């Protein structure tokens, strides 16, 4: 029941919001998002990680005669991602305070709709419900980008839309096929789909049909070209939603809807996927080094990071999987913070070109501290959240294959190169006539960054509680995926 209310609160609010006009919509959206966070925190307080079956489950017949149920529930992995979504959404809403968008009621309605859909994706226990929410999550972000985006928004969002729909259709085919394989009068419940045993040849194509959908969403090399442009052209709140949360849908999909369903397919293709991921890590990092556009640089860095997460998941080791799960949370926090910093700078300078920045730190000591901490989290410095994830991920990949681990490890060097280069280019050096009038961040802006920074350290110093939340669920998935 708690799960359903988590979906319904933002969904209903987003339906009502368009009827309200004026600045108040902002506040309402923020309050709703906070209420949602409160419900999620309450759920965590009631949650027992050791039970691997879905908790707070709901189950209503949808197309009962076909065995399709509107059902959902949370295990540890879902819980963590719901936590990520509910923490980030209020902050994303808050980040727009002090800045007004046209048709603001629609803007905030779409953000809340997105939240509902994302939580639906992370909690659904039925293949068709999953597909419904998966597609539903695409629509708000498409409109956010297409209406409030930059100059080239139409062409770029169109590309993004076609790309993801293309992948999703493969997934639909695979899901329908799996549904047809369930015994008796068929059922699309995840538990029944897990029981479907396919021969290895079939698993191989089902693997690719599902994987392409997830790979495009993540994105994994070479399915990534929609990503940098979309991140750059979207309005920053949409970019935050995309990079902070939506990107995790791909990884989550792999963990929940790929590994346990087609273990033989995974065993057959995991090396290929890891190699693609590692190519993505290196490729994305190297491109990021030369980027001049702040948001584009962050987009490529995000692409590189997600490659490591994918490699960790496909290493099929406990360390790699746990690392990927914790890194999903950590990366969400860092990347949202960094995109917001980019937005703060863009609001003041009206540009994202690093060449036109420099010396900003002299006017903005507070921003410098926040920016630095988020950047250090992103380059995986120990005692920040990024280190926990990357340490576990790399050791997982290393366990899978020493060479892959060593090559993937280059990310910590390249990450330092491009992040420090960006930081130095933006903050250090002499001021120019654009940057000398920059003002330090406002109170609301600090209110967005402060919780993020606290989380950066919290997760870095005491990752135990987060890992404990997901471990039983991850172990169960691993058992299904490896048969051990």
């Amino acid at each position, binding site marked *: 029941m708690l799960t359903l209310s988590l979906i319904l609160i933002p969904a209903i609010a987003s339906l009502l919001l368009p009827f309200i006009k004026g600045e108040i919509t902002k506040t309402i959206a923020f309050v709703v998002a906070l209420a949602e966070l409160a419900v999620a925190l309450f759920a965590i307080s009631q949650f027992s990680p050791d039970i691997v079956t879905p908790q707070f489950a709901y189950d209503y017949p949808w197309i009962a005669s076909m065995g399709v149920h509107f059902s959902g529930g949370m295990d540890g992995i879902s819980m963590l991602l719901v936590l990520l979504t509910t923490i980030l959404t209020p902050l994303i809403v808050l980040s727009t305070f002090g800045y007004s968008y046209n048709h603001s009621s629609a803007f905030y309605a779409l953000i809340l709709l997105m939240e509902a859909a994302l939580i639906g994706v992370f909690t659904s226990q039925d293949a068709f419900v999953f597909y419904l929410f998966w597609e539903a999550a695409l629509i708000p972000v498409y409109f956010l980008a297409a209406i409030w985006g930059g100059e080239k928004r139409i062409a770029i969002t169109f590309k993004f839309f076609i790309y993801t729909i293309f992948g999703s259709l493969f997934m639909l085919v695979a899901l329908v096929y799996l549904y047809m394989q369930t015994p008796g009068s068929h059922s699309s419940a995840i538990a029944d789909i897990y029981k479907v045993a396919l021969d290895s040849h079939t698993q191989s194509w089902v693997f690719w049909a599902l994987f392409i959908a997830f790979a495009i969403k993540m994105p994994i090399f*070479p399915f990534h070209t929609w990503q940098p442009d979309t991140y750059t052209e979207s309005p920053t709140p949409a970019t935050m939603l995309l990079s902070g949360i939506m990107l995790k849908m791909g990884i989550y999909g792999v963990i929940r809807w790929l590994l346990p369903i087609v273990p033989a397919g995974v065993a057959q293709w995991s090396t290929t996927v890891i190699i693609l991921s590692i190519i993505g890590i290196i490729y994305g990092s*190297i*491109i990021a080094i*030369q980027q001049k556009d702040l948001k584009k640089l962050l987009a490529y860095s995000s692409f590189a990071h997600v490659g490591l997460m994918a490699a960790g998941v496909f290493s099929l080791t406990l360390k790699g999987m746990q690392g990927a799960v914790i890194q999903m949370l950590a990366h969400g926090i860092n990347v949202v913070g960094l995109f917001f910093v980019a937005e703060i700078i863009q609001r003041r300078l009206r540009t994202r070109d690093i060449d036109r920045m420099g010396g900003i730190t002299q006017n903005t000591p507070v921003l410098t501290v926040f920016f630095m901490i988020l950047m250090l989290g992103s380059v995986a410095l120990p005692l920040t959240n990024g280190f926990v994830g990357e*340490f576990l991920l790399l050791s997982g990949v*290393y366990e899978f294959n020493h060479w892959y681990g060593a090559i993937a490890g280059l990310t910590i060097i390249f990450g330092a190169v491009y992040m420090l*280069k960006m930081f130095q280019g933006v903050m250090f050096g002499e001021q120019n006539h654009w940057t000398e009038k920059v003002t330090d961040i406002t109170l609301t802006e600090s209110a967005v960054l402060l919780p993020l920074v606290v989380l950066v350290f919290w997760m870095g110093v*005491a990752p135990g509680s987060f*890992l404990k939340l997901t*471990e039983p669920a991850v172990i169960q998935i691993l058992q299904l995926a490896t048969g051990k």
Partner: protein
Amino acid sequence: MNISTSVLLIPLLPLLGFIINGLGFRKISKGLASIVGTATVLGSFLLSIYTFNYFLSNNSQPITVTAFNWLAVGDFHISFSFLIDQLSLLMLLVVTGVGTLIHLYSSGYMHHDEGFGKFFAFLNLFIFSMLLLVMGSNYVIMFFGWEGVGLCSYLLIGFWNKNKSYGNAARKAFVMNRIGDLGFLLGIFLIIAHFGSVEYSEIFGRAASVDTATLTMITAFLFVGAMGKSAQIPLYTWLPDAMAGPTPVSALIHAATMVTAGIYMVIRSNVLYTLAPATLEWVGIIGLATALLAASIGIFQNDIKKVLAYSTVSQLGYMFMGLGVMAYSASMFHVITHAFFKALLFLGAGSVIHAMSDEQDIRHMGGLSKSLRITWITFLLGTIAITAVLPLSGFFSKDEILMNVYMHSPLMWGLGVLGAAMTSFYMFRMFFLTFHGTFRGTDYQREHLHESPISMTLPLMILAVLSVIGGFINFPEIFGGQAWLANFMEPLFANAKQASPEAFHHAHLSHSEEFMLMGVSVGVAILSLIIAYVMYVSRNTVPAEEGTPIPAVQKVVYNKYYVDEIYDMLFIKPISALSYFFYQVFEFFVIDLLVNGIGKLVKQLSNLTRRFQTGTTGFYVFAMVIGIVVILLVNFWGFLFR
């Protein structure tokens, strides 16, 4: 006081100082900031002494204090815990002791800087990280500190962040360290793979059960980390550039403490290294090569801090050479004495720079001995200590390393002595050019010449005393000493001795041989001293200004063998080019072409088929009828034409 509380407080105090100064650096006054900064480190120093006494009075039993369980995945645990034993205690005392003095010095040196509070915050953060590094009871906590000191080094080198080249130097340092860190990390992964734990106590006890090839891999990976942190070939070029930071930083981080982390790590892992002689051989060779290369570059440098930087690289090379021949305690001895005299030299250089209104070029100094009496005397003592012309601290430690090297290979010893000769030459060259001869600076600088305030000279004097008497902690038996340090550190090598007793068996030199070796090394050092004296005092030569033609060989050395340029050509340029290629070419012409190609294909097909949309209703109806007829025919084909 409870011993575990005091152990926990040792790193926590500087962290507290960092938090106070870091959060309030705009509001706290300079006086308060320096008091908070210095007092917290002093507190750690006092607690370290207390812990040291407790340790001695408790039969030298190692103490492990666990703060909390940091991470657990499956049955793999990493605990946030500290280990207090002989090695960490020595490092603790050096770090907090020298650290306190340098904090004190900084309160004078940085007094006019607007980022005063920030500076102390970073220094405290550095001490905290360094303490994590030396106190951690497992490799991951060591890695925390390892990366943490790298970060602080980055922050402090680029402290004057308006200057772009300082920022570049800082970034270079961080990235080079990161290259090493990747090696370290891979070493940790390999350890996890083979031992299933990262705790020292578990690994060292079971080291002998792992095959040599694996251990060689592990130690080699870890040594890559040490190359980065301790500036060994090929990752040494960041250290001279790191002199962009304020001078106390160079003294604390880039001379006395952080750069010796690599040596600490090797001594800590002595069991693994002892069981992997192939790695040790490489450690020794790389150490020797670094010592010689850096010393030769030092001969032609004209920046007072750069000379000291190359000297540091060179001395670190000696320490690794010592480690390579398994003279672990001798290397540790040199770490300690080096911390004293190199900190002294850097702080003295800082005092000179301070007096010369931020001039660093020794060609524009000269004759400073008259106006800077205290700096002059202390600097002289430091120079004597490092060059080992008289039996001050550096004499004993360097000699012990060279002696051990001689037993391993006389050739290495010979090259080591050559390095010592170069050291003596460039140190005295710098000393004479700075303090003797005629003043070559501007009139403005002459008028403003002044001895530094007491907060700066007091640390100089204390360090000078330590540089003089520091050798006595390991006074060799040959002079009737007890070799206290070597005995104190003996338990650290128990595991290694148990695992590989034969490695520790080597012949002892007779006293006459020892005296002969000492004589040779002192002789060449004095010879170099005389050459330097003749060149720069008697003949009063001054190195040529920039732009004047110099012999080709000298030019190559003066330009540091063009190593930076070679790296630029080998790594930085290709990666930039690759980045450009990927972004501008590959991304658009290969991947996007594929994606857009699919889009174009669909468009072409639709172009073909849209011709059917004639717009005439009749055509549509006709098509419909034809369609229906076809469907009917197909359905009833069998029925009609059977």
